[in-house]
């Protein structure tokens, strides 16, 4: 009887923890929502605007997180490499700007200009989009592929395996995933994890 109780307790914990990790946001295979968010150039951007795209590299990022800053040049490089191949970068800033004024629209504009971002850098006004995706931190990547059902999540996680030194990267998770999609192959690593700054609510 005791062991049965323990067993039930363990199962309950397992189920509960499974729910806490998976109920919030998308898993690989889910259809991701589109959005209509303001870009640093003042225009509104939706995924639906990109008629010729094959998919999207959606990256939740910001100005103020050292990890996000460490990846800025690599995010720009991703867009340069893959926008023309049908996978543009769409960056979304998810933080509450009352908590992080350094991430407000003026600061985003300044950052985009200083760094010469060629991708849209959007404000998640009202913080409605990142919870649907299930982003918890910056930077946090969702690779989407256009399908008949909608934009399907193909990869979730980190950009690569070395936030400190782009030159010392061993595995470029996002590039590998996009390359796999472009060549119609199975993505080998569909989910990765990295340290990041918690999204400020």
């Amino acid at each position, binding site marked *: 009887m005791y062991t049965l109780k323990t067993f039930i307790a363990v199962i309950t914990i397992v189920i509960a*923890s499974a729910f*806490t*990790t998976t109920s919030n946001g998308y898993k690989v295979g889910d259809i991701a929502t589109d959005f209509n968010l303001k870009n640093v150039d003042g225009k509104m951007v939706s995924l639906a605007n990109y008629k010729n795209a094959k998919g999207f590299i959606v990256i939740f990022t910001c100005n103020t*997180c*050292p990890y996000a800053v*460490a990846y800025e040049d690599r995010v720009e490089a991703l867009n340069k490499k893959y926008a023309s191949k049908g996978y543009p970068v769409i960056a979304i800033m998810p933080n509450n700007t009352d*908590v*992080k004024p350094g991430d407000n629209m003026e600061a985003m504009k300044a950052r985009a200009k200083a760094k010469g971002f060629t991708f849209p850098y959007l404000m998640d006004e009202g913080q409605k989009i990142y919870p649907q995706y299930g982003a*918890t*931190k910056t930077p946090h990547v969702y690779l989407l592929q256009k399908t008949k059902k909608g934009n399907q999540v193909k990869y979730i*996680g*980190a950009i690569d*395996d*070395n*936030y*400190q*030194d782009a030159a*010392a990267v061993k595995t470029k*998770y996002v590039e590998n995933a996009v390359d796999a999609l472009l060549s119609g192959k199975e993505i080998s690593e569909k989910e*990765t*994890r*990295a*340290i*990041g*700054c*918690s*999204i*400020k609510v």
Partner: protein
Amino acid sequence: MRILTYLLIILLVSCKDKPEATNSAAKIENDNVEESIELEVYDFDGLQKYLSTTTDKIYVVNFWATWCAPCVKELPYFEELNYKYADKNVEVILVSLDFPNKYESKLKPFIISKNLKSKVVALNDVDSNTWIPKVHETWSGAIPATIIFNKNKRQFYEQSFTYNELETEVKQFLK
């Protein structure tokens, strides 16, 4: 490679002293930092000795960084807990995820200025995709994050704490 990196850091730090010698105030501050703090830096394998125990102690391990505002905000609660529960066999360990190039300029001065009494160690291991799930399967990688454990059980929290919340969790382990 790691040794090379350290050598390089030492070289850089020692080089940095020269131009600062003209600025006496900065020089003194710099010397203080170097004299008074020894920072333990680990890769994940090295850190693992702090992530489990066979003793009767309860460990509260908090992952933080000086640049993480919610982490800095909750640090005093961990300090308070470490102080108040020291006689109840509870120990707080603060694992800094500051970048190695900020150890001297940010982390050590922070430890001194905040007068942190809990043990602070630095984790320098870029392969986070490998080690994050080893800390806890559910950790997305966002900080602050905290793990509380004794030899029988462990709990993981990807959240910020108030003092009361933290104390409540630790009391679960004292029962």
